[in-house]
Every structure is written in C-alpha cells, then in structure tokens.
C-alpha cells in the first residue's frame, strides 16, 4: 500500500459531513484542485483514511459512505486495467458531474438558510377573529389523494413512536465479513460472488465488495467476469493464512 498519510484537520468536525459527496468535495477543496481535475487514486486513499478515522472515533457512519468508497475503489481498480480505460473515464465524468451539481446544491441550501433567517424576523398576527362563515360546499384540492397518504403515514408514525423501541441487531463489521471470506477460501479455491451475497443485506454486500477489491489489489484473489452484470467468479491465489486475515482486519479497524 502506498504510504499516504494526509495531515488530518482533526479540528474539523468529522461527523459534520452531510454525506459522501460532502466529504469528497472537502477533500478536493483541500487539495486546491478544480473538481474537473480530480485525481481518483489519491482521493480514494484519502477518502478511505477519513472513513477509518471516523470509525476510530466511533462515529456512526452511514452506509452511504461505504457505497461511495466501493465506487471509488472500483474506479481505481479500473484505472489500472487498460481494457477498462473507457469505462473508467465514463465513471470519472459522472463523478465530476455529480460533484459539480452537488456544489451548486450546497450553495443554494446556504442561500435558502439566509433567506429564511431574514424572513422570520417578521411576525404574523396569530389570534384569529371569529367572523361567521356561511355554509360551504365540500371540495377537496387537486392533490388530496397524496394528502390522504400523508395523514395515514402520520397516524402510523405516531403509533410507532409510542411503541417500545426494538433493539436492532448489531450491523456487520469489516472483521465479520473478512472472517467469512477467509473461511470460505480456506476450504475451496473458487466461488461465485453471488453465492456469498445470497439473501444478505446491502451493508454486508458493500463490505464484501470492498474486501474483495482489497484482496484483488494485494494479489490474493483473482476476479473474472465475462460480461457486464454476469456472474463474478472469485479465485484464490496464494494461501489464506490466519496471519494475513489478521493483517487485513487490522488495516480496516
């Protein structure tokens, strides 16, 4: 692994990020790069470092951050494969577009906040005069049907709020996923990616994907896919030792 240790601005509130794009934009700005000049490899490393740091601080990190991490890793992997050059460029263009759009949204959100702060400096008249109304015909507005589902949702949500909170099972950690993966490859030489993800939740799949990419990167796994969306075959290269497993776990923790 390339030794890359960005100086962390820890004074920055790590938990203050509003999602993966916010974090990415922050990294790009820190490099004083134009969004359109984004260099995927270093950004991927830094992004992963941030996630690691956030995990160390025991911040509750949304799955969205890991989805972005796996996208970045996939891009990085593609950038190394000549055959994937076109696909890589396409993904990079998409990401640039997404970041540029997101930058606009942030500016617009800040503007709305400003407008709101100014607007609420005025107060309305609150008490109502009792002025008799005549009998009126009953009509509903154009979007009443959506108002109906909103009201129903309100009832359901209120009822849920009154119920005892169910304790959710602990989500997967990278350690669980890696142990599982190592367990499989200690017994066999190859397997289908789908057999590992069968009936698993999204968080697990994302972790698994990241682990696989990491193992491919360091040469322990070979991945073949004959066509887009076709089955991904994972093949073991080298030996899956306990030691290697611990090493990898340490890297993610």
């Amino acid at each position: 692994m390339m030794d890359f240790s960005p100086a962390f601005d820890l004074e920055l509130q790590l938990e203050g990020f509003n999602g993966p794009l916010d974090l990415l934009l922050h990294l790009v700005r820190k490099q004083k790069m134009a969004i359109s000049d984004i260099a995927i490899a270093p950004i991927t490393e830094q992004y992963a470092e941030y996630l690691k740091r956030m995990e160390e601080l025991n911040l509750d990190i949304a799955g969205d951050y890991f989805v972005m991490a796996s996208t970045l890793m996939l891009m990085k992997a593609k950038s190394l494969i000549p055959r994937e050059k076109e696909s890589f460029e396409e993904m990079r263009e998409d990401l640039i577009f997404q970041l540029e759009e997101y930058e606009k949204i942030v500016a617009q959100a800040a503007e709305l906040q400003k407008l709101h702060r100014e607007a609420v400096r005025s107060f309305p008249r609150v008490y109502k005069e009792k002025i008799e109304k005549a009998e009126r015909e009953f009509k509903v507005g154009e979007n009443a049907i959506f108002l109906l589902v909103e009201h129903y949702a309100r009832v359901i949500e209120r009822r849920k709020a009154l119920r005892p909170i169910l304790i959710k099972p602990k989500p997967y950690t990278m350690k669980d996923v890696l142990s599982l993966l190592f367990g499989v490859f200690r017994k066999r030489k190859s397997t289908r990616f789908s057999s590992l993800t069968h009936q698993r939740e999204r968080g697990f799949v994302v972790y698994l994907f990241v682990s696989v990419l990491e193992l491919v990167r360091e040469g322990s796994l070979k991945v073949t896919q004959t066509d887009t969306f076709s089955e991904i075959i994972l093949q073991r290269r080298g030996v899956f030792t306990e030691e290697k497993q611990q090493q990898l776990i340490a890297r993610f923790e």
Partner: protein
Amino acid sequence: MDGDFKATVEALIFAADSPVSVEKIAKILEADMELVRAAVAELTTDYVPRGINLFELAGGYRFLTSRRFYPMVLKMKDTDRSLSLSQAAFETLAIVAYRQPVTSQEIAAMRGVQSVSSILRNLQTLELVRIAGRKDVIGRPMLYRTTPKFLELFGLYSLDELPSLEEIGVNEL
C-alpha cells in the same frame, strides 16, 4: 412622540397572542407607562379611518378588522370554497380508506383517542364514508368503508390506486 417608539408598540400589539396591557409593553420596552399610554392613544386615533382598528379589550389592546368592512371580509371567507377537513377528520378518513372495512373502535385505537364517532358522522354527512355491515365479533360493531363519492372526489378509479405508504418511505410495522 418618537415615531420608532410608537412603531415598536404597534408591532408588539400586532404580534401578541392575546390582548397586551400597557404594563406589559412598558416592561418589554423598559419604558414609562405614561409614554406607552400616549403611544397607544395616538395609534388608536391613527387607525380610526383605516381598515384595521385598535381596540381595548379584556384589559389589553389588540388590532381587529374594522367593523365597517365586515361584509367584505365575510364575502372573502365565503370565497374560500374548498372547505378543508380538519386534521382529525383527515386522519380518520385516511384510516377508513386504507384499512376498510374497519370499526369505529379500531380507528379510535389507531389514532390514540377515546372516540371518533362524531367525526365519522361528519364524514358520513359529507358522503365520504358509509356503514358497510357489522363485524362478526361480540357486540357486532359497525364496519365502515369509503363511498364511491370518495373515489370520485379524490380522483381514483379504484381503491387499488391509493398511494402506498412504502412509496413515501414509511414502513408499516
């Protein structure tokens, strides 16, 4: 009289939840009661020819629509034709729509209230809800359903077209 002082008194009376006393205004503005009284007197006079008047009521002051223009105000209130259902009525209607056939007790339990019978009567009067038989349990309570008029008013061909909770990201648990 300092124009800004008078204007502040005006703003306070306008925005208050209930009639405000001279005493309260004086306290907020850290001003002399006499000064506030004078401002209120001037404001009262200023507003005499206008569409809004300043009234002394229940130990305090408040702005009200000038009585002279009541007929027009009434006309405006009548023009707001699309009578909207109250929050409680809308919720009750929503429960009937989504859970029909349903009993009055079931609706009340879902809404966390003692009774919804007067709301249900109201919805029946508006022809949005109807009685559709009795439930086969002890006491044989009446079952409620929505009417064809409900479908028509809400622009639906059938109940299958009701938007699902899932679509707005709420899971029923």
